[in-house]
């Protein structure tokens, strides 16, 4: 117990500035909530103060529980319940997370494989350069309707959209990372008798992992934006859908709440990946993911 308090104390000492900023921000929001004029609809203050967000707005999330089991369904005349709110948040979060993960995995895998394939020859790389440049300039969210048109208003569209948004980044990052592998590693491998295939598998692939790990951090945020963006249009479930429903009724509290949950999920996924990356990149001298230190530095004569 004492150790736990000690650790918490150290955490406070190290992070007190960021914690103080956070508290100030929350406080400022609360003050703004009380100073801002009340809107005509009682249920929606313009800036919802925290007691509203975690009170009526949170309870109101039970409106999005639509299965007539475990908790009453408000849309069928049932009461708003805390259990219903919890179930609704869990259900819609899980749906969004599933879309995100599927899209992310497909995009990352596809982008990396395509990038590796195009890195095989200089001609292919030059061939890909211009379209890739154009592709990266596309405003991602502006393409949501297009994906809806192509795939319909369903999970496939959301997954494909996330995969596209993420995949473009991985495609470009892979091509770039492969061309950044120091040529001496490749020459060295060749003089040890490695075939082209082995050079690819044992030298180029591991050498690009650090750069790809940076891309993961970059694309995690992007993927969350993309999946919410895809859910704005036409989908009947997911956190993005909740935000849009809440907007129909000017329900600022629920919008804020759903946004907070997305922030929470994005932060957790960030943190989890950083931990994973630190394990994957254990061989790196110093990494952004907290790499290792030298254990030995002596030369026996």
């Amino acid at each position, binding site marked *: 117990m004492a150790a736990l308090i000690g650790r918490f104390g150290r955490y406070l000492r190290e992070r007190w500035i960021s914690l103080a900023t956070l508290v100030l921000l929350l406080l400022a929001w609360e003050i703004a909530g009380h100073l801002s004029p009340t809107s005509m609809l009682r249920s929606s203050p313009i800036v919802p103060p925290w007691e509203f967000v975690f009170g009526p707005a949170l309870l109101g999330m039970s409106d999005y529980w639509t299965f007539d089991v475990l908790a009453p369904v408000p849309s069928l005349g049932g009461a708003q319940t805390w259990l219903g709110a919890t179930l609704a948040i869990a259900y819609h979060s899980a749906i969004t997370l599933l879309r995100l993960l599927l899209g992310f995995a497909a995009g990352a895998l596809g982008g990396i494989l395509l990038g590796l394939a195009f890195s095989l020859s200089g001609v292919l790389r030059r061939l890909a350069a211009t379209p890739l440049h154009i592709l990266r300039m596309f405003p991602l969210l502006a393409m949501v309707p297009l994906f809806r048109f192509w795939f319909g208003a369903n999970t496939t569209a959301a997954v494909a959209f996330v995969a596209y948004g993420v995949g473009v980044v991985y495609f470009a990052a892979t091509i770039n990372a492969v061309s950044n592998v*120091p040529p*001496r*590693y490749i*020459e*060295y*491998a*060749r*003089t*040890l*008798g*490695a*075939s082209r295939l*082995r050079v690819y598998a*044992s*030298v180029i692939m*591991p*050498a690009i*992992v650090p750069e790809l790990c940076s891309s993961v951090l970059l694309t995690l945020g992007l993927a969350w934006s993309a999946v919410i963006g895809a859910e704005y249009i036409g989908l009947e479930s997911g956190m993005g859908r909740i935000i849009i429903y809440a907007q129909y009724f000017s329900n600022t509290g629920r919008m804020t709440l759903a946004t907070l949950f997305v922030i929470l999920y994005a932060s957790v996924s960030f943190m989890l990946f950083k931990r994973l990356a630190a394990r994957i990149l*254990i*061989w*790196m*001298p110093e990494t952004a993911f907290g*790499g*290792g230190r*030298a*254990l*030995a*530095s*002596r*030369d*026996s*004569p």
Partner: protein
Amino acid sequence: MSGHGKGIVVRDAWCVFEHVSGRKVEALREVTLEIPVGQFVCIVGRSGHGKSTFLRALGGLNPLTRGEVFVDGVPVAGPSAERGMVFQDETVFPWMRVRANVEFGLRAQGMSAAERARIALDWLRRVELSEFVEAWPRELSGGMRRRVALATVFAGGAPILLMDEPFGALDYVTRLSLHRLLLDLWRNTGRTIVFVTHDIEEALILADRILIIMAGRVVDDLPVALPRPRDEEVRARPEAVGMIKTIMHHLGLDALAAEGFERAPELAARR
């Protein structure tokens, strides 16, 4: 034209690069020489005068513009496991543990895991890294990583080892200990070693024979008949000192050149 006999045969090798400016650079000019099996050859010369180009041509990493390199009568067409290389820059793969690094060449040759492990551990013992078999390269010092590189090329079994200033970035003491190690390994294995260096002392410690390359040409070919080990006393003998003078002269560093700055363009330009 074909290469006869064992060892390395170089016939009228030319290597011309086109500079970005369009200027043609003759990095190698009509180099013709033979290196018999088991010889330790050092190549000395000023930087940018073709030492590395020559070594890379032997390794099959630089295509020749003209002429040919033969190894045991077979023309060199590209890099191969027959000619191991140790580069000036760090090449130990940081993403593999020490043992996996040493096993890399053996794995490429399709050797079984047990056999690979046996050979790798043996070579790691010989370079005195038995304690660091499962370490990551980042956990080792620069000198230790050089030992890993040596263990890797020796374990790969290449009869010819090409080394491009492999100890150039190391401190004096570490370099001396690595000289001793390399000479031990060489003596016990009978490999042919071609070793590029800019350090005359290093060449005198290591070589059976010193080639001096200036402006792409082999301008001198000196057999080193000094007894081994080549400690300070041996290196202070009149014949050793004579050899140092000859090399200095070729490099444009002798007293005569120093006076007129004729052979030292950088110095002349600075004036």
